[in-house]
């Protein structure tokens, strides 16, 4: 398929040398907009800005991050789905790309059919943390405690479709129990109530929890990544403690469907350059995450992750019966 496309492109280039070069070879000739479907300053926005900075240098054109927030990221994604597929409007979305088709029963776009995947970027690990005086001290104790107390335990999350809500669903799924889930308008207020002891427990991205864990403001139980984290070396992984709960807030870069293969290839190369960049690696480390490997920063890897995650979340969400519309 890929061969066929490049063959077609080659024919096109031979037949219409002028138009062809103007279209794909000179790309990019003007600034590129990367839509982030969340507010500026959030974790996804931060990832986007760090990557966009280096991609700009590589592409020789400004890569501008545009925040189109609202409706759990579906507004921004919907906007890119219908945008012109000339390679100048891209989407940087996280795990929500795979949960939206199930969470929203009337989604106006199709995450697989309406986009060309460019590549995976990073998977931000999550941590299970609780208020300081929460009874259990280890993950084993936590699991037993939650099983014993069920709905008497309050679990905070940052709204439907948020990473913390997804992690909570997985956790309850793994333990086959229910807790009282309390939604907040974002991670900040949820963390405030954990620190203040108003609520028991949350599973949230390292971006939001690392500094509070290091300062001893919250009690941490485990990290949901396959390996321990560099900046929280004492925190065991969920697998170490025998809990089957692995989740990372994976981020991907997409172009609208039908974008020229040569353009996608160029973007893929720029993305790889960005992910290998020293500043990006060190900033990601401060956020408690690492860029994906070179093999994963590819359209194939993103397409596969996306479709397998859509399947995974369809099962989890339908079982929980929680929808966003």
């Amino acid at each position, binding site marked *: 398929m890929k061969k066929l496309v490049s063959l077609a492109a080659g024919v096109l280039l031979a037949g219409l040398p002028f138009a062809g070069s103007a279209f794909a070879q000179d790309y990019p000739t003007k600034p590129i907009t990367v839509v982030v479907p969340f*507010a*500026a*300053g*959030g*974790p996804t*926005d*931060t990832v986007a*800005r*760090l990557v966009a*900075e280096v991609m700009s240098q590589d592409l020789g054109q400004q890569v501008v*991050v*545009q*925040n*189109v*927030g*609202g*409706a*759990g990221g*579906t*507004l921004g994604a*919907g*906007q890119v789905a219908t945008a012109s597929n000339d390679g100048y409007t891209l989407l940087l979305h996280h795990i929500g790309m795979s949960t939206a088709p199930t*969470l929203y029963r009337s989604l*106006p776009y199709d995450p697989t059919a309406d986009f060309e995947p460019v590549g995976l970027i990073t998977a931000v690990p999550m941590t299970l943390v609780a208020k300081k005086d929460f009874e259990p001290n280890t993950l084993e104790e936590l699991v037993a405690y939650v099983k014993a107390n069920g*709905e*008497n335990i*309050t679990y905070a999350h940052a*709204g*439907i*479709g948020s990473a913390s809500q997804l992690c909570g669903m997985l956790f309850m799924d793994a333990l086959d129990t229910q807790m*009282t889930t*309390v*939604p*907040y*308008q*974002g991670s*900040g*207020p949820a*963390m*405030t*109530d954990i*620190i*203040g002891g*108003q*609520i028991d427990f949350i599973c949230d991205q390292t*971006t939001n929890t*690392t*500094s*509070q864990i*290091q*300062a001893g*403001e919250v009690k941490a139980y485990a990290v949901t990544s396959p390996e321990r984290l560099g900046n929280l070396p004492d925190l065991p992984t969920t697998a170490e403690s025998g809990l089957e709960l692995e989740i990372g807030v994976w981020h991907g870069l997409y172009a609208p469907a039908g974008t020229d293969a040569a353009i996608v290839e160029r973007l893929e190369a720029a993305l790889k350059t960005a992910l290998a960049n020293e500043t990006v690696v*060190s*900033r990601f480390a*401060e*956020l408690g995450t690492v860029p994906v490997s070179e093999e994963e920063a590819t359209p194939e890897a993103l397409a596969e992750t996306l479709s397998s995650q859509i399947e995974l979340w369809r099962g989890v969400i339908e079982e929980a019966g*929680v*929808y*966003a*519309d």
Partner: protein
Amino acid sequence: MDIIASLGLGFSVALDPTNILYCFIGVLLGTVVGCLPGIGPTATIAMLLPITFSLSPAGALIMLAGIYYGAQYGGSTTAILINLPGESSSAVTAIDGYQMAKRGRAGPALATAALGSFFAGTVATLLLAFFAPPLARAALNFGAPEYFALIVLGLLVSIALAHGSILKALAMIVLGLLLGMVGQDIYTGQPRFTLGFRELYSGLNFVSVAVGVFGVAEILRNLENEKERDVMVKAVKNLWLSKDDIRRIVAPVLRGTALGSLLGVLPGGGHILSSFASYSAEKRLSKTPEEFGQGAIEGVAGPESANNAAAQTSFIPLLTLGIPAHPVMALMVGAFILQGITPGPNVINDQPALFWGIIASMWVGNVLLVLLNLPLIGLWVKMLSIPYRALFPAIVLFACIGCYSINQNIFDVYAIGVFGVLGYVLIRFGCEPAPLLLGFVLGPLLEEHLRRAMIISRGDPSVFVTRPISATLLALALAAVIIAVLPGIRRKRKEVFVEED
């Protein structure tokens, strides 16, 4: 001793010439965007975030903080001059500030706003320096029941916002509460009053509603009769405060500063209440409450001090615990992270120069703002002599561009038109827009905290009276209602007497 040394360190950072420059750029930009209706500090900081990439952490954060509190100064300018509040806090300033401007006292109103804000800013800076960590700890005692009680108190006390019928004010608050419900229910994701439009899922935009019911409605009203147009008052009596004015604003500024400083520390929405609370307090304490709504200088002095104090103390939860109190603070978190600093309890120890530098820069910024704003008053007042037919279309256009630029959501622009018409209808019915805006801003918070408290208590409403802080606040709210109703009853009795005579 420790604090003095720390403040010394802070000032050595803040008074670094480059940082003074960034601080100045920040407060200047803040003043400008505060003046331009539509473009608030949130949008500005969001747009400038990428630029701060290349600055030093201190420079970047000093500049962004400057934009935020600078906008609190600037926001009052349009509220006073043309009845267009750009922020919920300046909605209150518009009530009496605009009336002062209509009476040719735009100068003193602007001067009061600037001086009140400066004083409040100075006090809040000292509070930040001396008591930030304990204040942040105290604020953590506020959970959902406490916030619910606080907002109930705020809503009930704010009936004083209206100078007409209490019934109409209540109706406006309720209408505002309903408008605040538009959008996705945060607990179930259910869209409410969205008429099937995905663009309405995140609710109505505050700026659109404010520009509509205040600004556009005022323009429509003025179109009714071209000859009696009263927006522009050519005879500006004086620019500076008279001795009498100064005497009248001292106490409101002090009270506003105290109220604002305390409310600002509460991350769950305290800063929104500050100016409304201060206005209500001033009206209650005033010997001449009938002047409120007719251009009472106290009605500008109190709320302006309160909102500036709150703007600054709302940095306390962010700087000491790393938790954002509102969307602007969430952006500041993003700015910290972009600079490679994760905001949290450790910032004060790991980055003392940055922590104290930001605090000290706030005072420097306030000095800069006063120096910048006092000479500008003359210029602002002159702006009123721009022909109405040029000024107002331009302002509405700016507002539309500003609203659109925040979310790229065309519905935010439509909303300006819709609420302009609604606002005009309300004016014709003798209803006031301020209580409506208050309901609109506080409604979602009220609902959020009420439902969260009930979820956490697993459906037991007694949490509101068994938790001491919440019980106290609700008792105060009850007292406020009784006090509000009593004179009404007495007056009615008198009226009955009069009729019988």
